Structures are given as structure tokens and as C-alpha cells.
């Protein structure tokens, strides 16, 4: 984790060559301004909204983090997964077992543990995944998603997992006597984890390894020809992706205060996938929008019609795909480009008027 933070900090420092190229620096500055504004809004949010909304925003961040994990694998490395509900579930159960059992670990220690467990499981699954592609990989990961609830319920693990009854955990109190309540504290805690993880992902993607990961997605044969160790990068990406989603699962367990086997079925995987696509494949901030979608759109659909909420949800999905086939991130990008063109056109027009 500390290494990651170091990488993140490194990346935050302005690269010297950027200072030379003026237009690039402008773009960078605007980007940093936006990120700064978003973080400020994130920090201020719990002070102005109700506790219930704080809880919802916390869940949005958690789903966003889980979707970011999937994004690293699918969006950046081109490997398809329907099994991320399992990583989320393993992370959640790791946290719940460590917090409630004889271990009685503090909640913040469960995150690295959940991340580590999922990283190992991810690597173990990444190895066979090397031989599988596309739909075949989808089926293999899908097998994992189907198997996890059954394994959690099975009599081998019942003593550990609480079987079909699940595990209830207590909500952590804010530390150091901070004058905020438990919901606000969990929000800030999640926000901090989220920022670190997103920054780490951003710098990973920009790094040498990140370029290798994307080269494998875009052209595996060319990547291999350039001397990229495909097997190693693919397996590692699987592990890191599982780590992200696992940490999100652990946070989810702490915030919801309850884990049960059937919460982690393959429908959750489908939700993550939908969030990924709607947010924008291969876009890091898009993952957060995916989290917004996963949490809020079912509520919106329900408002329209209780009986037909599933149908309304489907129609909303279709509309989104028609309106922004490249996801929210792609939509924002093309909208920004369009605005820029418009701006350029209008300046050209006005200067044209002046001269005439």
C-alpha cells in the first residue's frame, strides 16, 4: 500500500516537460482543477446532506471502487469477467470474519487483508484464464460467480461463514473523539481509501506497466513481439483487479454491517458490468459514474413504476446505450470536444466580423 501511495505521489508531481508545452499545461491545469473541485465537493458533502444521503454516497464510492477493479481488467487489459461479484464477496467475508470472529480485528486492518486474499485468489484464477479468451473466459469467471454463494453456504465452511444466516458486524465509531457521527466517519474513511486507490490506478495506467497492459489489450501479438511478458502482465492484472474489488467488498461489509451468501450472486457481477459499460470502459473517473448508476437507477426505475421497475430499468439502459454508446466518460469527452469546436468556431466568427 505504501508503495502505491508513493507511486501516486510521484504521478501527482508535474512532469518537467509539461511545463514547456503551454497548451498541454493548460489542459493539465484544468484537469487538476476539476479533480480538486471534485475532491472538495466530496469532502464538503457530508456537512450539508442528511445521514441517509451520506450512506448512499458511501455506497456509490464503494461500487465505484469495485467497478474500477473490473475496469482495470476489462477496460485496460481486455479480459472479460463475470466473476467480480465473487471477489467482492470474498473481500466482504474476509472483513466480516476478521471483525466478528475470535480475531476481532479493527475494521481498518481488514481492508489490506481483504485486498491480499483477493489478490492471491485473483492470481490463482488469472493463471488458468491465460488459456481462455472472450466468451470462454466469461464462462470460467461466471463459474466462479455461481460457485461462491454455494461454497459460502456449504457445510465445510459453515463454522467460518455462518452458513445461510450470514454474519452481522458492528458499525465502527469515529476515532479520536471527532465531532462527527458514525455515518460521516465511514464516508470520510471510504473517501480516503477511494482517493488513494484511484490515484494509484491512474498512475499505474500511466506507467510503463500500464502501457504494457494496454498494449496486450490492443494487439497481443505485437505486444509479445515487443518483448512484453504477456502471461505475467495478464496474471498480475487479474490479481490487482481482484484486489480493488475485494477492498470494495470489505468496505461494503463494514458499511452495510451484514454479509449473507446470496448477496454475492452473479446478478451483482452483471450490475458491475453494466456500471462499467455505462460509466465508460477504460475510464477511471467513469467507474465512479458507474457506481452512481448501480445505486441510483434502480431507485429511479422504481419511482416510475413499482410493478414494471425491471422494464423501466431496461428502457433506461437502452436509452443510455443509444445516447452514449461509449459510456458517460465517452459522452463527456465528445461533449467537451464539441463545446471546444463550438468555442473555436464562435471566436473565429467574431474575429471574422471584426475584420470585415
Amino acid at each position, binding site marked *: 500500500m505504501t508503495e502505491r501511495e508513493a507511486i501516486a505521489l510521484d504521478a501527482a508531481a508535474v512532469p518537467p516537460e509539461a511545463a514547456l508545452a503551454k497548451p498541454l499545461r493548460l489542459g493539465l491545469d484544468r484537469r487538476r482543477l476539476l479533480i480538486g473541485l471534485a475532491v472538495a465537493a466530496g469532502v464538503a458533502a457530508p456537512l450539508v446532506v442528511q445521514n441517509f444521503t451520506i450512506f448512499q454516497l458511501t455506497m456509490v464510492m464503494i461500487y465505484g471502487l469495485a467497478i474500477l477493479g473490473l475496469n482495470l481488467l476489462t477496460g485496460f487489459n481486455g479480459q472479460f469477467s463475470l466473476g467480480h461479484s465473487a471477489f467482492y464477496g470474498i473481500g466482504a467475508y474476509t472483513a466480516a470474519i476478521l471483525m466478528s470472529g475470535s480475531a476481532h480485528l479493527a475494521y481498518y486492518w481488514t481492508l489490506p487483508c481483504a485486498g491480499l486474499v483477493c489478490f492471491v485468489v485473483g492470481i490463482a484464477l488469472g493463471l488458468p484464464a491465460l488459456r481462455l479468451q472472450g466468451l470462454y473466459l466469461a464462462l470460467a469467471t461466471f463459474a466462479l460467480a455461481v460457485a461462491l454463494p454455494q461454497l459460502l453456504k456449504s457445510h465445510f465452511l459453515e463454522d467460518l461463514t455462518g452458513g445461510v444466516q450470514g454474519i452481522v458486524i458492528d458499525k465502527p465509531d469515529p476515532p479520536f473523539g471527532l465531532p462527527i457521527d458514525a455515518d460521516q466517519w465511514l464516508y470520510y474513511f471510504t473517501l480516503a481509501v477511494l482517493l488513494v486507490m484511484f490515484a494509484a490506478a491512474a498512475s499505474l495506467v500511466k506507467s510503463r506497466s500500464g502501457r504494457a497492459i494496454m498494449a496486450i489489450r490492443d494487439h497481443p501479438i505485437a505486444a509479445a513481439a515487443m518483448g512484453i511478458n504477456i502471461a505475467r502482465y495478464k496474471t498480475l492484472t487479474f490479481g490487482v483487479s481482484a484486489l480493488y474489488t475485494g477492498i470494495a467488498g470489505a468496505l461494503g461489509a463494514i458499511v452495510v454491517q451484514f454479509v449473507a451468501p446470496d448477496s454475492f450472486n452473479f446478478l451483482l457481477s452483471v450490475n458491475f458490468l453494466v456500471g462499467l459499460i455505462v460509466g465508460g470502459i477504460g475510464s477511471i473517473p467513469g467507474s465512479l459514474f458507474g457506481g452512481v448508476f448501480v445505486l441510483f437507477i*434502480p431507485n429511479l426505475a422504481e419511482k416510475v413504476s413499482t410493478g414494471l421497475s425491471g422494464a423501466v430499468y431496461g428502457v433506461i439502459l437502452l436509452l443510455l446505450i443509444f445516447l452514449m454508446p461509449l459510456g458517460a466518460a465517452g459522452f463527456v469527452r465528445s461533449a467537451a470536444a464539441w463545446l471546444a469546436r463550438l468555442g473555436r468556431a464562435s471566436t473565429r466568427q467574431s474575429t471574422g466580423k471584426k475584420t470585415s
Partner: protein
Amino acid sequence: MKKITRRTMLATAPAALALVSLRARAAKKYGPGVTDTEIKVGNTCFYSGPGSSYGTIGKSEAAYFKMVNDQGGVNGRKINFISYDDAYSPPKTVEQTRRLVEQDGVLLMLNPLGTPTNTAIQHYLNQKKVPQLFAGTGASKWNDPKHFPWTIGWQPSYLSEGHAYAAYILANKPDARIGVLYQNDDAGKDYLHGLVEGLGDKAKSMIVAKASYETTDPTVDSQIIEIQAKNVDVFVDIAIPKFAAQTIRKSAEIKWKPLHILIGAANSVAATLKPAGLDNSIGVVSDFFLKDPTDPQWQNDQGYKDWLAFMDKYYPGGDKTDLYNVLGPCFAQTFIQVLKQCGDDLTRENIMKQAANLHDLSLPMLLPGITINTSPTDFAPIKHIRMGRFDGQKWALFGPLISGQLPV
């Protein structure tokens, strides 16, 4: 409309407190969500996802409250029943429950549906001291007033149904070789535990075959063969209607005739026995606490006629063969009795006090003789069931009322 922020809430709190104390002097005591004309009640149910067949419980309940409101409400107050979808997903239940309690400001949660979903909100509601009234599940853990004074169940527990089957088997077939098919979830395992507990020392020798299924299994043929191969003569079928109907039909096809026991959740004539074949179902035994609207013996019963009239007028789209559409109104009627007992003291404390103070309450669609009873130490409103055997037309009830509780 003015937006409520934390700050304005803090600012208005003392004023609100003053208002409450003023009302107290006027002998009217209101909790959150209550006014002179309205009571806000929250609920979560499964309207989407794989559990959506249960959604009609919430819909029929909402329809029933609409009828009550049209008739003037309870003590002049209309019931504002706010029901949200949780898609049978505990994280969503927590979200929706918090929305109801913190944003909509409901007085209480009325029969949230499902075991894992209720478990997920039990701590939260007890910490907040919000009644989790008549939880819509048959788990036995809701009857624990010592640790969870704000949670109360409603229907007979799966555990007690399991006890009843054990008692029936011990009395009628003491040398039975029992085979069990059960759904691999909390309800299925509760039934199984109940059966094992009820059989006591003999459970080990009597239960010779156990097989589970998942709801995604297309058929349970493999399980049936496995159980049949152990020379089973009593078959306890802990399955939802789809699979119960499959087992009844399959055992008829392979001419396997054990004593077939169905669980109470799957004994509807229209939903299980008709698809399975009425002739194939002769001799099947099950347990009851509600009147099955598709059972011809209730055609002239007043409770059934009233229910039918209600369905025709207020829920015409609802399936009149679905037992869940009986369950919804029964939940509502129990709650209305609690409200009547509360009078003008509609605080959360009094709601729980009155919910734990129900005596011999009978509802129109509960089986004759079955009543609701609670006390401060007894949070299990419905305890009794009756056994019945299918005669090809209707369920012939037999034997006395059985209390599923084991003699301690």
C-alpha cells in the same frame, strides 16, 4: 419547499420537542410520521429480481390500506403505506430502510420481507428504536424480546412447522424411513433443523436421505432418484411451489408412493397441486394457518367472500389464486388492530407495547381457531397450525391445533 438540512433540523429540534410535550399534555402522543390525519408506515418488499413473485404481498397490502383509507382510516387517520423495492438484496434493504426512517420519516417498518433482508436491518432499527413490526419471514430469531425489543415476527416459524411434521411422523409412522428434499437457503435449513429437533434422538436413525436443490436448478429429478434409492417411505418436501409440483408429478410418474409432506408455503391448490395434477396429489399432507382461496371448502365462508370483494374492487389485477395475496391483507389487519389499541398514543414505544399485547385476535382469513397472541416475553404472534390431507378436491383438515413450540 424548504430543504431540510442538518442545520435547520438541529435548529428546529427544540421547537419540535416543545411541540411534543405540548401534545403530551393534550393526551395525544405522536411519534415521527404521525399527524392528526396521517400515519406514515414503511415497508420493503421484492418487486424486481428473481424474488419478484413475492412482490404481490406488498401490492395486496397497499391495496388493503387503500380500502381502509377509503373507509375513513383508523381513528380518523389515513395510513400512508410507503413500500420500496429491495430486490431481495440486503444492502438494498439497508438503503431503502434508511431512506424510509431518515428521509421519509416513517413511524415504523411494517413487515419487511425476507430473512437475510430483515437480519440486515435488525441492528439498525433496534439501535434507532424503530419498530420492526411483524417481520415477513418464518425465521425463529424474531422472537427474542430480550435482545431485540424492537423486532417482532408474525407467522409460525419454519422451525415450528418442522416440529409439527416430526410430531406427526412420530405419532403415525414411528418406524418411518424419512427422506428430505430442501432448498439450500435459510428457510430450507430452518425447516430441516425443526424436523431434526422434533425427532430428537431418533432423527439420526430415521432420516436416511437428505438432498438439497438450488432455485436455479431446472428440475429436481436427480435428487428424487437419490432419495427414492434409500427406500424412503416418508418424504418431507421442503420446496417452493415449482419444485413441489415437480416432485408430486415425478413421484406419480415413477409410481413412488411415500407419505408426502409439503411445507405450508407450497400447499396452494392452484399454485402447486393443479399444475402437478389433482389426482397425483391425493394423500399429500401439509400444514396450514391461512385459508387457501382456491380450496373449495371456503367458497361460502364470510372471510373468503369479503376477501374476494376486496380483491375485485381494490386489486383487480391481482391473482386470486395466489396465497401471497391473502398474506398481505392479514399483515395489514394485524397492524390495524395494533393501531386501534394505541388510540391517540402513537409513539414508537406504545406501538411495541401494544404489539406485545394482542390477545385472541382472529383474522378473517386465518383458519378457524387460530388466533394471534403476544406478551412482553412472547414475540411470536401466530404459533398454531393445523395439519391437512388432500383428498383430490380440497384439503381435509384433521387433528387438533398444533403448537410448534417444543415442550421445554
